[in-house]
């Protein structure tokens, strides 16, 4: 097995939707994320796997400029590394935070509407209809305080709210965290559905088997460094990947 494989083959034409070159981040003196390369093409679902503390969260937060980072981030070929977080969101990159990041004392409806902060009233209605189709349960709980939802419902709301911003690229940080296996599978199924409809997704997960069922390609991160890239063809033979990176 080689450490890295070129990723030029089998990818749709044009520049990647997201391309990261030498992105790194430090907390104080510690370089938690070593210079990292990663790319994601239009319509792809790519997963980032890795054990606790590997730097997965730091990677997605660095992409969104929620932590100070060095290196290059290109979105649709354009350098977006200098943009502020809210401008990245307006461009169409949205992150669902680890732990969901709901506005807990606000209702489901208020959370949903805030997702469409930059949208017009008409767009808001269209998008609401779309997310209720994906997660009908949200519609039944519109006036409930979001903190009082079940874990699964909270994750649905977090994803639904992110979709309200009409992302072109959706980043998710461990959406299955703390969920029963059945519920986690339900969430990931919805992500698969979104991806089939053409949405680019970068999925950070610890539950490798679940993520690998959906992903076209995978990156394995340990100790702040990409130690493995798996192409579409290889994924099938790597269901034992957990052993690979936990060992």
């Amino acid at each position, binding site marked *: 097995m080689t450490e890295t494989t070129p990723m030029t083959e089998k990818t749709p034409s044009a520049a990647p939707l997201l391309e990261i070159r030498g992105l790194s981040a430090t907390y104080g003196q510690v370089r938690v994320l070593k210079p990292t390369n990663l790319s994601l093409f239009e319509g792809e679902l790519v997963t980032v796997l890795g054990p606790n503390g590997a730097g997965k969260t730091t990677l997605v937060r660095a992409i*969104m400029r*929620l932590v100070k980072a060095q290196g290059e981030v290109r979105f649709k070929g354009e350098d977006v590394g200098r943009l*502020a*977080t*809210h401008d990245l*969101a*307006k461009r169409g990159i*949205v*992150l669902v*935070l680890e732990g969901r*990041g*709901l*506005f*807990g*004392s*606000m209702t489901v409806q*208020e959370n949903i*509407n*805030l*997702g469409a*902060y*930059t949208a017009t009233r008409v767009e808001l209605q269209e998008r609401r209809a779309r997310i209720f189709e994906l997660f009908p349960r949200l519609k039944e709980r519109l006036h409930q305080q979001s903190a009082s939802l079940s874990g699964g419902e909270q994750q649905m709301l977090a994803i639904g*709210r*992110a979709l*309200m*911003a009409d992302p072109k690229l959706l980043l998710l940080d461990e959406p299955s965290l703390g969920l029963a296996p059945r519920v986690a599978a339900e969430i990931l199924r919805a992500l698969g559905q979104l991806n089939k409809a053409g949405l680019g997704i970068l999925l950070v997960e610890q539950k490798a088997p679940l993520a690998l069922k959906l992903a076209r390609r995978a990156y394995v991160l340990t100790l702040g460094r990409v130690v493995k890239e798996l192409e579409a063809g290889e994924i099938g033979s790597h269901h034992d990947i957990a052993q690979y990176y936990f060992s």
Partner: protein
Amino acid sequence: MIDTSIILQAVIDGAGVGLIYGLVGIGYCVIYNATGIVNFAQGVFVMLGGMLTYTLLTSLGLPMIVAVAIAIPLVGVVGVVIEWFIVKPMLVRNSPMFAIILATLAVQIMIERITIMTAGDQPRTFHEFTAGGPLRLGPVAVGYQLIWVLVCSVGLVLLLTLFFKYTRIGNAVRACAQNRDAAALLGIPVARMLAVSFALSAALGAIAGILITPSQYTAFNVGVPFGVSGFIAAIVGGFGSASGAFVGGIVLGVAQAVAIIIFGAGYKTVAALAVLLLVLLLFPSGLLGKRSEK
């Protein structure tokens, strides 16, 4: 024995001043809820509201309504300037909260000194909004200015509630208060929302200062007493709760006025602090505050 009508009169007048404390207290809440910061420059907005209106009335000879319409947004701009040049840079640099609070205190003192240098240290006042009065209700007299205070403060609380509940920007400010990262990730310009909260809070302070000046006076140094009373009102009500600050203000104002009647003017501050201590002992999170989870 003190005549009940005198007590009743004190309650009415105290409630009027209390409404002003309430407005100042709500000013603290608006900023605290959006940023987690206690802005100790809050009283300065009260002073600026009164002083600017006085200046516009006397030096430019503007009519009251025009002077007020200029003074309120002007003080709002001062709030934004404080946020932009002091609070935001400190937040970005992850300054500890006590350092930010100290910085707002420094701003308060600087603005007071600048006011002395430019407008002098003499107390100023201007006429009531409506001439005439007072209204006689049985044994008590209700000044027209008090009615202005009541109508304006209730109206403002109502408007603020609607703003935070039903407008896009109001909801976005609340979202920033709960989770700034999540708000930014949805395209909400967090820095601008913090500036909105400072502008609103400064405008509230200015309105309080304008409303109270005719019945009292304004001067470079009224910021501290109003700031402190507003702060006590906010804590008594439950810090962060706007309706709590409103109720807290009224309780405080009434307690002070009644204490003056019964014990003498020297006991005004004692009464205020007694209310504070009593509430803190009986209701650790304030009258309308949420019980903290931890």
